[in-house]
């Protein structure tokens, strides 16, 4: 492979391997609003084939002064039908980089690296699974839900956000899961409050044996603590500011306890999916955690 001269819209079989991340220039199949978020679909057959729920891709964005890629959880992959070989991401469009992405058009070509990171481990037995998503963290949860349902699992979904507009794809959640429960801070949809307020009821009804989560770190902390208290295993897709996504920059670390010792592990390679019971949530210092503390100080 002669590297930098990747033709437009094609994926190289990087390094001749069948697994691991690729870097490719991928054609945009479409960008469209999806509720209050954006959905972007890429033509990326080799990445779609390798991808697992919980993994992510990074995209180069052409915004003034930005030199780093933007990471996105994979929301879906299609390997059959008219959209075969495509991969979808969902994002807010609020930041400079995602605003630029929202402005892309069909046939534009994006510089993509992926699939990256450790996805959600799937249970060996067909146990009932509870999937909890915050905001657009719903997207990888629905990808996982479809995967688990296809494997014969009962899946129950809880999605939460500040307001109804910030919950992604309630329709798909209701369609794919045995039950879908929504919570909003302002009560504009579902149960007023946070996702942790409804977990006891849902788990009792569903006979939950395993818990998965994706969303802001404070939410993941709450869900992990609840799962630990219930004696349930939990797997959480964490988010932390990352520069490279490939394991070389050491910026996206999350404190994890192993054998009584605390270690900082890289969210991009050892994660983003981590055992919720092992993460030392009290030591996590992400901006979202700091914001939650500020909110609570302010009452």
């Amino acid at each position, binding site marked *: 492979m002669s*590297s*930098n001269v990747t033709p437009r819209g094609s994926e190289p079989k990087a390094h001749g391997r069948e697994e691991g991340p690729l870097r490719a220039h991928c054609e945009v199949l479409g960008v469209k609003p999806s509720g209050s978020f954006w959905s972007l679909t890429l033509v990326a057959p080799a990445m779609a084939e390798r991808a697992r729920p919980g993994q992510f891709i990074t995209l180069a964005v052409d915004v003034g002064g930005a*030199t780093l890629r933007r990471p996105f959880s994979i929301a879906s992959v299609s390997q059959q039908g008219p959209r075969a070989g495509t991969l979808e991401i969902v994002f807010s469009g609020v930041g400079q980089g995602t605003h630029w992405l929202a402005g892309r058009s069909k046939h534009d070509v994006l510089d993509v690296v992926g699939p990256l990171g450790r996805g959600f481990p799937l249970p060996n037995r067909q146990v009932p699974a509870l999937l909890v998503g915050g905001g657009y963290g719903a997207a990888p949860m629905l990808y996982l839900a479809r995967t688990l349902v296809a494997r014969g699992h009962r899946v129950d979904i809880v999605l939460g956000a500040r307001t109804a507009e910030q919950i992604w794809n309630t329709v798909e959640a209701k369609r794919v899961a045995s039950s879908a429960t929504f919570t909003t801070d302002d009560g504009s949809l579902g149960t007023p409050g946070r996702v942790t307020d409804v977990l006891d009821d849902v788990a009792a009804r569903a006979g939950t044996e395993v818990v998965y989560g994706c969303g802001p770190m404070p939410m993941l902390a709450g869900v992990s603590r609840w799962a630990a208290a219930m004696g349930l295993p939990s797997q959480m897709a964490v988010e*932390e500011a990352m520069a490279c996504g490939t394991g070389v920059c050491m910026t996206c670390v999350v404190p994890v306890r192993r054998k009584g010792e605390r270690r900082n592990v890289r969210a991009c390679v050892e994660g983003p999916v981590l055992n919720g019971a092992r993460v030392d949530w009290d*030591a996590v210092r992400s901006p979202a955690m700091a914001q939650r503390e500020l909110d609570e100080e302010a009452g």
Partner: protein
Amino acid sequence: MTTSSARTPAPPAASTASGPSAAAEPDVDLSVDLGGVTLANPIVTASGTFGSGREIDQFFDVGRLGAVVAKSITREPRQGLPTPRMVETSGGMLNAIGLQNSGIEAWLAEDLPWLRERGIPAIVSLAGNTVDDFRVLAERLRDVEGILAVEANISCPNVEDRGMVFACRTDPTREAVRAVAGTLSVPVLAKLTPDVTDITAIAAAAREAGASGVSLINTLLGMAIDPETGRPRLGGVTGGLSGPAIKPVAVRAVHQVHQALPDLPIVGMGGVTTTTDVVEMIRAGASAVAVGTATFGNPMATLEVLEGLRAWLAERGIERVADLRGTVRLPG
């Protein structure tokens, strides 16, 4: 992970058997001398931006680079600073990692064997907070095979000097470099901070103490504050600025040191992202050029500038990259 059997062989450096219509790529001698050792080409990695080498080897055969400079290692494992450790800034980023690493024993047991097995030229980066740290690390490496050169990252705080960075003053620079260069037979490169009044004086001190060359530049110390919360954006409060924003500072530092000490080998680094950035560094006086933060934005960045440099030289009929070194044309 990767298997060597699945590896795509590197294309030949120069084609002599191409068809009549294909423009034969002229031979370009990319080899450079770095304080007594020869690199096959001048493109290396900046410490702390390339992991152990294995992470990026998923994307291409990193053995094609001139050398891999490993992440700085310390005597004991370090967990580093709390997050956030990174904030993107205009034209670059700030980082405050706190030298998280598994320590020298783990590096020798886990990372060096992989580099050796693959035949990848390895430059070890050593970091410490006392002169004794540097001496102990160097002694541990004395009889270790498979190390091409050592980089002494003396842009670390010296706890015996009220936390002032070794490379901010000449005497601590001499002491730290002597502790490494006096112990090892392989070339020692002193990695210097640009946050000084006269970097040529520090480079001269490093050379007096036995450094075979210098790595220019480490990150610049910077800071960013969230305007709403008033909190520093980095867990470590201040951090190192890297990326294209600092390239002119790096070119200036390389130029100044090369003018002052023309025969001192220099590894130029700081915001190098494109082929012409590499050319600029070499014209300023760099013997080799390290790509750092660019690898975060593009895992192929090192290989792309290597191939770009070969083509750039070939297009201009320059047969040896070494001939380009220090070819800045000053006025007057």
